[in-house]
């Protein structure tokens, strides 16, 4: 992974000192609350319903065991001994005291971490595929590009006060899109042209929130050396023309929609021509320098363990299920990528205790070259595990209660913090996730249902990505009461589709039964091997509506 040199370290250290000074001034009453607000947000600090919330950046979801241990340490020292993994591959602490935040940031800086631009109307953490660099189906490793974007966007002087937040995602896989790039302000797809050069297909104006929109292509092939100048041109047009009169219309997607993608791209081109081939043009040596941080770890030359595993799977059905659901094939023979599910009934999705975090760090040291990844499904990935270690690892995870073989099933819920933590919420989301997990807890039944993305958001801000869940649940407020709107057919992958709302919303206690009816409809009508999402697209909403809203007999 990327390792800071003295320049990177200096920038992060100075940022900590700057924030310490700002916090001091605020605590002394020299900085008004509304003026401190954007300053603290640019450093990931929200004032939440119960306490401040600090969002720590995990650039493109990659974290070392040393860094993860530091998170555990901080959560014990300054918080309640657990941390939350977010849908944007970041980590949140829910209860730090404002006065402690400068010290927390200093502790983070010691292990090359920070909270820069994890919130506020600026360029946020760039995200990518959680299996980047270890899957066979990839144009090239997208992480060096994410790091190049991270550096360019960090403390960018011109784009710290944008109309609204701005999110960039990169995908390098050719047959899937685990980064959901079509639902980001800018989506970058690594592509190869006819002559074999690697560049970017650029999408702009995608997003969730109140107005979910699929991003549109504005450049079919951007040569790689122009990446930063092109991003700068897009941001400049957005900073000048994006709406600032209404925060619900301020995202770039609204601007692109209002202008039309043609007119928007003309404006971008005009700006780009001014800076193209200028100082921000990437040099081959810089690209090489960053790539050199992402070379393969020292893999052993070993064979796939198919037969040995087959025997173990036969003897241990639970291990077999776990391999089926939680283990991904690897580009390197003899290795595999393991997803550790952080979804457990009774715990908020994405939450982990300090003990679990420490143990995960140890497991990464023992089995995966000391590195981990955070996925936008709020799980943890050990990406480089020897197949011969899988059984031992599974046993270790089992002892921790982290071996649930539910990845990708209905039980692997993506869920925002919702009304339990978030001041913006219309409704609670975590108890809904729990109620569903409790209702659908039979593993064989879950496996029979196959892949189903269930995403829950506590309000229109869509942090739980409900629009792109195969099943989406959105908390709404009806005259002070919490209701839930259900949508079907969303898809975060290459097809990029926004789900359609089923109909009138439900009370919390109705939601599990409604889901049962939706699932029953699928089970009755599905064709052989047909996934839930494909069945919804084939059947349309009608049969689901009929079942769900049928007046009871």
């Amino acid at each position, binding site marked *: 992974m990327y390792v800071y040199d003295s320049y990177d370290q200096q920038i992060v250290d100075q940022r900590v000192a700057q924030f310490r000074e700002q916090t001091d001034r605020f605590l002394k009453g020299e900085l008004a609350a509304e003026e401190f607000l954007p*300053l603290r947000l640019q450093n990931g600090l929200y004032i939440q319903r119960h306490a401040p919330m600090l969002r720590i950046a995990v650039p493109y979801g990659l974290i070392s065991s040393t860094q993860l241990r530091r998170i555990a340490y901080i959560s014990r020292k300054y918080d309640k001994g657990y941390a939350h993994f977010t849908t944007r591959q970041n980590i949140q602490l829910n209860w730090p005291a404002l006065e402690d935040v400068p010290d927390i940031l200093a502790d983070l800086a010691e292990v090359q971490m920070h909270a820069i631009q994890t919130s506020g109307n600026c360029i946020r953490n760039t995200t990518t595929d959680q299996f980047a660099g270890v899957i066979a189906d990839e144009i090239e490793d997208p992480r060096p590009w994410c790091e190049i974007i991270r550096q360019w966007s960090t403390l960018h002087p011109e784009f710290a006060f944008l109309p609204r937040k701005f999110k960039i995602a990169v995908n390098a896989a050719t047959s899937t899109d685990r980064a959901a790039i079509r639902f980001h302000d800018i989506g970058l797809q690594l592509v190869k042209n006819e002559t074999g050069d690697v560049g970017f297909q650029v999408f702009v104006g995608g997003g969730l929130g109140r107005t979910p929109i699929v991003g549109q292509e504005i450049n079919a092939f951007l040569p790689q050396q122009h990446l930063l100048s092109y991003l700068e041109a897009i941001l400049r047009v957005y900073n000048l023309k994006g709406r600032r009169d209404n925060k619900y219309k301020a995202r770039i997607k609204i601007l692109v929609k209002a202008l039309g993608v043609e007119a928007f791209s003309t404006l971008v081109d005009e700006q780009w021509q001014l800076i193209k081939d200028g100082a921000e043009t990437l040099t081959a040596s*810089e690209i090489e320098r960053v790539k050199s941080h992402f070379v393969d770890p020292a893999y052993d030359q070993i064979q796939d363990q198919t037969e040995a595993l087959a025997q173990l799977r036969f003897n241990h059905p639970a291990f077999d299920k776990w391999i089926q659901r939680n283990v991904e094939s690897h580009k390197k023979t003899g290795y595999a990528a393991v997803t550790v599910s952080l979804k457990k009934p009774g715990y908020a999705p994405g939450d982990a205790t300090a003990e679990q975090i420490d143990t995960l760090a140890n497991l990464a040291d023992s089995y995966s070259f000391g590195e981990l990844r955070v996925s936008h499904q709020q799980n943890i990935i050990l990406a480089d595990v020897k197949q011969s270690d899988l059984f031992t690892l599974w046993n270790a995870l089992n002892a921790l209660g982290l071996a649930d073989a539910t990845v990708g099933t209905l039980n692997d819920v993506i869920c925002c913090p919702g009304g339990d933590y978030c001041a913006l919420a219309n409704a609670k989301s975590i108890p809904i996730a729990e109620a569903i997990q409790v209702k659908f807890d039979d593993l064989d039944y879950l496996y029979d249902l196959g892949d189903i993305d269930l995403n829950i958001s506590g309000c229109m801000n869509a942090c739980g990505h409900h629009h792109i869940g195969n099943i989406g649940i959105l908390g709404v407020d009806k005259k002070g009461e919490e209701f839930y709107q259900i949508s079907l057919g969303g898809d975060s992958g290459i097809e990029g589709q926004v789900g359609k709302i089923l109909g009138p919303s439900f009370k919390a206690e109705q939601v599990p039964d409604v889901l049962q009816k939706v699932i029953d409809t699928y089970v009755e009508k599905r064709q052989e091997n047909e996934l839930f999402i494909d069945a919804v697209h084939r059947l349309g909403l009608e049969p689901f509506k009929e079942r769900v809203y049928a007046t009871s007999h």
Partner: protein
Amino acid sequence: MQHLIKDGQIIKDDPWQLFESTDAQGLPGNALLPVRIWTDFGHELAESSLPFGAYVCEDDDYTELLPFLANLQIIAFKFGKFADGRLFTFARLLRMQYKYEGEIRAIGDFLPDQVNFLQRCGFTAFCCRTENEMQTALSVKDHFTEQYQSDTRLAEPLFRRRTV
């Protein structure tokens, strides 16, 4: 009493005054005039022996000033809301695209904490709201001694300067 920092120094006797009317009769020298007056009377103003400047708000079209850049010793950008970042881009384009070399001054509702980024976008003078804020601005304006990007002050991004 103004609280002006210019090229890093406190300035006590700056002559420039904001002139907020759009009535162009009998304009005093050293007036920072609205864009509107430059649009309507720019050519006369350019010929005057008196020095005139301009001030630009977020919703103004600063490109109306382009024909007169050579006559403008100073362009002030007046922040209506500190969280509105358009003026950062206006200044940057004025320097980068239109090669404006006169003074670019921040006035209105900006924060001392923004001065570092404003400098990097081409601002050279800062008219702070209070004495306190001016002192803060002076102490924090050069807080960062390293940066990743190129900007109006530093022609090369870090990746072109980095020594390993």
